[in-house]
């Protein structure tokens, strides 16, 4: 399989998973799967956040990313969970700690 074919295959897989329920929206499930869908976005976002903040090299490590997470939480408390507040306080904490301790 050459690179172009591989890219087309990855694109097809990605799009099919994205369009799966949108192509037939009347078959959106309820019940247990519906409850799963209620909590999945939160679980997903926290998983991605954890990877970005706590495992910068692929495994858990003490880095300025943890300070950024703490700053983000503080920003969320101070600015009523505002996205901009979390980003601003978290980023400021990250750059400050990195400047002080390196990493």
């Amino acid at each position: 399989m050459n690179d172009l074919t591989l890219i087309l295959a990855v694109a097809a897989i990605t799009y099919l998973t994205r369009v799966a329920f949108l192509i037939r929206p009347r078959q959106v499930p309820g019940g247990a799967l519906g409850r799963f869908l209620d909590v999945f976005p939160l679980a997903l976002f926290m998983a991605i956040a954890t990877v970005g903040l706590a495992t910068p090299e692929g495994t858990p490590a003490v880095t300025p990313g943890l300070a950024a997470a703490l700053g983000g939480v503080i920003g969320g408390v101070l600015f009523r969970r505002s996205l901009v507040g979390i980003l601003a306080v978290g980023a400021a904490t990250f750059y400050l700690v990195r400047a002080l301790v390196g990493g």
Partner: protein
Amino acid sequence: MTRLPSGPPAGVLSPGVISQDRAHHGYGRAMFDDPSFRRGLRDTILIFFAVAAFGVAYGVLALDVGLPPWLTLFSSVIIVSGAAQFAMVGLLAAGPVPVLVAATGLGLRHLPMSATLARLVGAQPLATRLRLAFVLVDETFGLTVRAANAGVENLVAYKTAADLMLYSGWFLGTGIGVWFGTAINPESAGVGVLFGLLFLGLAAPMVNGRRDWIVVGASVAATLIATLILPPAWQVTVAATTASLVGIAVGE
């Protein structure tokens, strides 16, 4: 957790959903004047720059593993998934099978997102649904859920704006990465941390009850464990699925 608004029953349009008439008769031009569209543009300005920075990193890495510039750009045009594309270039040397397995593993997380988005936008023309699916990525999905909870009237217009910003940022960033090659190192600027903060910010408004806090804790713990025992392609999907199952088991 703030509950996702339930979509309208089949065949019934809610006030927050574009009417079929507008959808079929020149809505495309009117969409640019829609307040929801403009709000979508405003809300994604930060994401535009963050995604563009990651696009730069992708362009640099893709060239580094030997992907030709035109294929690097083409992949960003047609795949539009940072996770899948980074996995692809990371596993390219291992052959097509690991790449396809990784793409499938990463794609699994789109299934609930697709179902949730279908519920949010309700009845829409097929072309609109196919288009909304093309840039159904973590960032635009998160923002659309947030917009739904905030009462944004026209989620189709909102997500279209978010999609345009993300798509252009991703392509532009990839182009810059291809153009400047290894002279740029976005990771040294802490882009990965900023992306983590972005998702922390997207998750924060969704935490409203005991079950949500348990899901947060379970997700963080499952992710940390997953990074120790699973290959990167499966870590996020497995951790998020595990935490969701814990949330279901705990109940309301």
